[in-house]
C-alpha cells in the first residue's frame, strides 16, 4: 500500500490551471523529492497533500484513504515550512507543545515527547529560548522537531534549507538524511536545488509547468533523462545540447559529424531532426582525429581544483567540457574534442523525448 497516492490531481485557481493532472505514488518509508524550477507546481502539490490547498480535481490518498475533503490535522501529516514558521512569541518548548495541543495528550506524555525529540535533535539546551535567540540551523532543527513530536505518518518539507548558508545547508542536509534513516517515516520534500534532491531522495519527481517530467531514482534521472528538459535541468554544468540531423547513418550538426552509436541504430530515421546531448564529462581532449572528434577552440577555462571546465567553440556550437585540471589547454588554444559514444544521449528534436530504449 502506498503512503501517498495522487491520481490525475489537478489544481486550478479560478480559470488558471497550475497543476495539470498529476499521477504519483509514494511508497511507505520512501524519501521522495519534488524537484523543479520555481513556478512548476511542486509547492502547490505539496500544499495539496498537506491540505492547505484544495484539490480541484482527481484523487489524493494518504495511507490508502482518500483525503481530498479531510482537514489537514486528520491527514497524519506534519509540515516543515520554508521559513520555519516558528512562533516567535513562544519558546522552543512551547513551539513544540503547541503543535501537540490539539491532540489533548496528558501533560507528562507531552513533556516526554518534547524531551525525546529535543535530545534527538540536540535541542535540549535550547528549550527555553525563543526563535529570535537561535541560529538559522537551530531554527531549522526546531521546525523539524515541531513536526517530529506529532509522530506523523508523513513528513512534508517545503524548501526547508533555502534560508541557510551553503555550509550549513550541507550539514543540515546530512542530518535530515540520517534522521530519515533512523525514523523511516515517509517524506515528501520540495526543493529547487538538484544537489539536495540527488543526495536525499530515494525517488526524484521532476516537475515543470504543472506536469511531471520524470520520476526515478537519482541515478535514473541523471543517466537516463526522459527528455531534454530533465537532461539539462539535472547536472551541473548542464548537458551540452547540439541540434543535428541523421544523414546516412551519421549525425550531422553544422560542421560536426559523429557516428551513431549502435544502440540507437534501430530507432533513427534518415533525415530525422535530433538533439545530441552529452554531459561535460563525456567530452575529452583527443590527440588524434577520428569519426567521434571535432576541432574546437578554447575560449575560457575555469579552474575547479581537480578538474577544469573548458568553454569550447566548435564551429557554431558552444560546448562545455570537463577535463583534468592538470595539463589543461590555455584560452585560445586549438584542440580536438572527443565525444564519448557511450555518453551520448539522443533526443527527438520535435518532441524533446529521449530516443534511448
Amino acid at each position, binding site marked *: 500500500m502506498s503512503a501517498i497516492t495522487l491520481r490525475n490531481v489537478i489544481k486550478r485557481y479560478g480559470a488558471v490551471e497550475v497543476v495539470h493532472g498529476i499521477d504519483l505514488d509514494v511508497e511507505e518509508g520512501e524519501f521522495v523529492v519534488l524537484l523543479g524550477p520555481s513556478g512548476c507546481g511542486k509547492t502547490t502539490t505539496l500544499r495539496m497533500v498537506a491540505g492547505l490547498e484544495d484539490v480541484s480535481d482527481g484523487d489524493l490518498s494518504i495511507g490508502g484513504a482518500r483525503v481530498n475533503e479531510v*482537514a489537514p490535522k486528520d491527514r497524519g501529516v506534519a509540515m516543515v515550512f520554508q521559513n520555519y514558521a516558528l512562533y516567535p512569541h513562544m519558546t522552543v518548548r512551547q513551539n513544540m507543545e503547541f*503543535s501537540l*495541543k490539539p491532540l489533548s495528550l496528558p501533560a507528562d506524555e507531552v513533556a516526554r515527547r518534547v524531551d525525546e525529540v529535543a535530545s534527538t535533535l540536540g535541542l535540549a539546551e535550547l528549550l527555553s529560548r525563543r526563535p529570535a535567540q537561535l541560529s538559522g540551523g537551530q531554527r531549522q532543527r526546531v521546525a523539524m522537531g*515541531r513536526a517530529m513530536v506529532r509522530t506523523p505518518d508523513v513528513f512534508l518539507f517545503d524548501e526547508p534549507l533555502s534560508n541557510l548558508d551553503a555550509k550549513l545547508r550541507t550539514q543540515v542536509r546530512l542530518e535530515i538524511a540520517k534522521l530519515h534513516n533512523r525514523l523511516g517515516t515517509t517524506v515528501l520534500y520540495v526543493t529547487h536545488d538538484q544537489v539536495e534532491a540527488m543526495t536525499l531522495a530515494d525517488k526524484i519527481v521532476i516537475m515543470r509547468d504543472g506536469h511531471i517530467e520524470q520520476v526515478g531514482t537519482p541515478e535514473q534521472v541523471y543517466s537516463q533523462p526522459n527528455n531534454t528538459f530533465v537532461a539539462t535541468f539535472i547536472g551541473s554544468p548542464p548537458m551540452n545540447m547540439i541540434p543535428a540531423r541523421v544523414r546516412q547513418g551519421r549525425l550531422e550538426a553544422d560542421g560536426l559529424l559523429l557516428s551513431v552509436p549502435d544502440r540507437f541504430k534501430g530507432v533513427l530515421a534518415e533525415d530525422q531532426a535530433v538533439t545530441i546531448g552529452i554531459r561535460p564529462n563525456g567530452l575529452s581532449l583527443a590527440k588524434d582525429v577520428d569519426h567521434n572528434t571535432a576541432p574546437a577552440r578554447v575560449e575560457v577555462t575555469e579552474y575547479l581544483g581537480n578538474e577544469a571546465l573548458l568553454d569550447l567553440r566548435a564551429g557554431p556550437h558552444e560546448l562545455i567540457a570537463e577535463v583534468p585540471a592538470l595539463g589543461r589547454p590555455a584560452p585560445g588554444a586549438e584542440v580536438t574534442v572527443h565525444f564519448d559514444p557511450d555518453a551520448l544521449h539522443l533526443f527527438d528534436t520535435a518532441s524533446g523525448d529521449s530516443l534511448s530504449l
Partner: protein
Amino acid sequence: MNKPSTQQAILVYTLLGIALIVFMTPIYLIVSSSVKPSPIMFQRPPAMIFEPTLDHYRDLFAMRPFGKFIANSLIVALGSTVFSVFFGSIAAYAISRIKHKRMNDVAFWILSMRMFPPIAVVVPYYIIFKTVGLLDTPIALIIVYSTANIPLTVWLMKGFFDEVPTALEEAAAVDGHGLISIFWKVTLPLAAPGLAVSAVFCFIFSWNEFLFALMLTGSNAQTAPVAVMSFWSSDAVQWGRIMAGSFVILIPGVVFVLTCQRWLVRGLTMGSVK
C-alpha cells in the same frame, strides 16, 4: 546620510532649539501657571522663580466635583477603548484574511466613517439618545466614540495582521488548531504592539474629545475637557484653575508619548508611510 560637520551641527541645534522653545512654551505655561499664585499670573516679565502653590488644584477638586468629571472621562475612554479594540481587531483580522474583491470597499467604507464632520451628526445623535433615554450617560459617549475608534483600530490592526506571516497560521492549522485558537494564540500575540497602539489612540481620542461630550452630556456624565471649558465661562476666568485642569487632562497623552513614542509613530504613520 553621513554625519553633519560641526558647522552644520551648530545650525541644526540652533534651529531645533528655536523650534523647541516655540513648541514647548505653551506646555510650560500650562504647567507653571497651574502652580502660580493668581496675583502674579500675568506678571511681566513672567515670574520664573516663585513659590509654587497647589491652591488651584485644591480649588479644582474641592470646590468643584472635578474628580467626578475625571472619573467620567476615564469610564468613557476605557469603555470605548475596550469596546473598539475588541470589535475593531476581529473585524480587521477578517478584512486582512478574507481575499475578496469587495473587501476593499468594506474597508474603505469603514475608514470613511472617520472622515465625517462630527457636527453633521451631533443633532441626530442628540435626538436619538434623548429618545432612548441615554442622553447625559457615559454609554452615549462610549457608543459615539466607538464610531471613530473602531475604524481607527481596523485601519491600524489590519496593517499589523497583514505582517503576521500566513505560514505561522498554516503551521498551526496543519497541527490541528482551529481558527479561534490560531487567532488567539498565534496571530493576536504577534500583533500585540498593534493592540497597544490602537488602545492608546482610542483612549487619547476619547479622553480628549470635546464636541460630542459638550452636546451629549450634562451635569451627570460631563467629561473633564467640557468641565474645564465651563470654568472659562462660569468663573470669570480663573486661569489658575483652568491651567490646573488642563494639566490633569494632558497627563495621559504626554505619558504615552514619552513611554511608547516608537510604537505611536509606527501606528500613526502606518497608513501614510511605506
